[in-house]
């Protein structure tokens, strides 16, 4: 976005990243990922068979996208080595002067993965409540009982709202017949 905010690398946001001044070597990881993704996209396209009567075929688009993605990865690596630093995004609840708290993110991803794995047999009413209470706990809330109650109310209400109002049947899981 071209707000004036973004055009100044010296706003407080940029200075907050703990990376060595002038370089952000983590960006090389992103550049590497881009090269990998682009190369795989290109390789994947070579496995496709070409159809008849279609001068473009299914390969051209992935070829172009893959190649350009690799190129962009290389450009990003060059830019990083020449001292290009990303200006991380600010926001209402974001405090960029603190070092990033990856533990919280890890906890949240864990809670989400629990959701992914349990939703089919526990059902939305239970999984949703765990998701809410677990996320709130991960984010530093220490009112566990209240969070569980709020979570249950949210998930049961949304189950009924989708069931009755929208005709979308979320899985009831082990509560089948109870809800």
């Amino acid at each position: 976005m071209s707000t004036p905010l973004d055009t100044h690398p010296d706003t407080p946001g940029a200075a907050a990243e703990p990376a060595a001044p002038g370089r952000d070597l983590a960006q090389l990881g992103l550049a590497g990922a881009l090269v990998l993704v682009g190369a795989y996209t290109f390789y994947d396209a070579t496995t496709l068979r070409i159809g008849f009567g279609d001068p473009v075929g299914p390969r051209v688009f992935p070829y172009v996208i893959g190649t350009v993605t690799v190129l962009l990865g290389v450009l990003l690596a060059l830019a990083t080595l020449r001292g290009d630093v990303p200006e991380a995004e600010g926001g209402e609840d974001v405090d960029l002067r603190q070092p990033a708290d990856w533990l919280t993110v890890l906890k949240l991803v864990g809670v989400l993965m629990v959701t992914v794995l349990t939703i089919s047999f526990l059902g939305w009413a239970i999984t949703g409540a765990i998701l809410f209470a677990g996320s709130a706990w991960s984010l530093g809330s220490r009112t566990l009982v209240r969070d569980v109650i709020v979570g249950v109310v949210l998930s049961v209400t949304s189950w009924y709202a989708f069931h009755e109002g929208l005709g979308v049947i979320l899985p009831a899981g082990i509560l089948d017949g109870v809800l």
Partner: protein
Amino acid sequence: MENLSLLMDGFGSVLTPQNLLFAAIGVLLGTFVGVLPGIGPAMAVALLLPVTYGLDPIPAFIMFAGIYYGGMYGGSTTAILLNTPGESASVMTALEGNLMARAGRAAQALATAAIGSFIAGTIGTMLVVFFAPALASVAVAIGAPSYFALMVLAMVSVTSVLGGSPLRGFIALFLGLTIGLVGLDLNTGQPRLSFDQPLLADRIDVVVVAVGIFALGEALWVAAHLRRSPVRVIPVGRPWMDRADLRRSWGPWLRGTAYGFPFGAVPAGGAEIPTFLSYITEKRLAARKGRDEFGRGAIEGVAGPEAANNASAAGTFVPLLALGLPVTATSAVMLAALQGYGIEPGPSLMTDQPELVWALLASLLIGNALLLVLNLPLAPLWAKLLRIPRPQLYAGILFFAALGAYATNLQAFDLFLLVLLGLLGLAMRRFALPVLPLILGVILGPLMEVQLRQAMAISGGEVSGLWSEPLAVVIYVVVALAVLAPIVLRRVRPAPAAVAVDQDVREKEEEGVR
């Protein structure tokens, strides 16, 4: 005048008690979600997509219109009361709006924002009523090569012109294009990039992408950097304006509308430039009148940008309805909603689905009016939302993001994709990759491939077929200009006025961070 009678038909199908109820729910939900800190209009629409799943298209779109304008209105409330613009289009509103709030004039700032949004939204929607059908009737006639060129233009302009760093814009765009490749090839039916996963061969649902990148990515990013100190919210009374405020606001409202609409309507995208232009215009005009309150809370500085913001939002319906091209994140999500109903976006939308399009336009006007009627008295209530404790707030966002992604297809696999895309969204915020080009790539990539193949099939495989139409040539020239202009402009010194405003913004931002 034919357009007006079609619009009246639209009102006819919208104005039932049931549909008005949907409009009211949409406005309230949109405002509710929009006021919540950390949620902009695009995320509000993405999170609320599943609410419309079980509905018929017309009531669903009526609700969407309300959510859309409600979300934008909510954004300005946060900007004024918290001094933290949730999205780049509210940056200019936050500048003077928060100063007004600190000077005890929060009520007036909220009122001028609300009324200005209403006026700009209404004028803007009426302009869409007149422009979009005309453009669509021309657009139906354009061939595949020109349509392909138009999509290139939309991508390039959103990616390189608007972004602070074109390299990062293009990285985001190509990540989006890669995601758009996943699934069965449209002509030969072979799976691409699907890792032998039948669920991936089905293509990744745009809703999952939007919710993952916008909602989950944002929540994870905030989680990593959560502000531990409580936020200061400025108390607000019931919004009202006296005669002097009104006299000072109507000019900026109209000028802001005039700036905003064209920027939204021409696929150059974004409300950043018009809000910025509106702000400096009002600042200059105020200085000329010798009544320069700018920097101390000038009502003109809220009225103008807020009107420009809303007029631009209305304007984005022109390319969206006439060409099927989304140019903002919010309209991209709305396009995803259209596709969810099996409605193909494109130049023929207005002729294929006239009832839906005119109902949508009518409901935009109704939603806009309801917003004003319902929300002016409710402002103190909305302001209370800003005090929700952050752990519970973001837990709620995760909850609804999961609900939305899951309810689309009822596949646990979609939730897994959601987590992956959320991590991608987190990485994008860490590395300052803009979100909009990615979403645009996901949506436009597959459409572009269809057009490219058609164009090439028509020309019998000759690449020159791509510029066989004069319109296509013109568009490619514009694309070239769009790429070169920023490079040239960067070498020229910025205008002194712009520098002055930049200075203000930076000072305000620093205060905001503190």
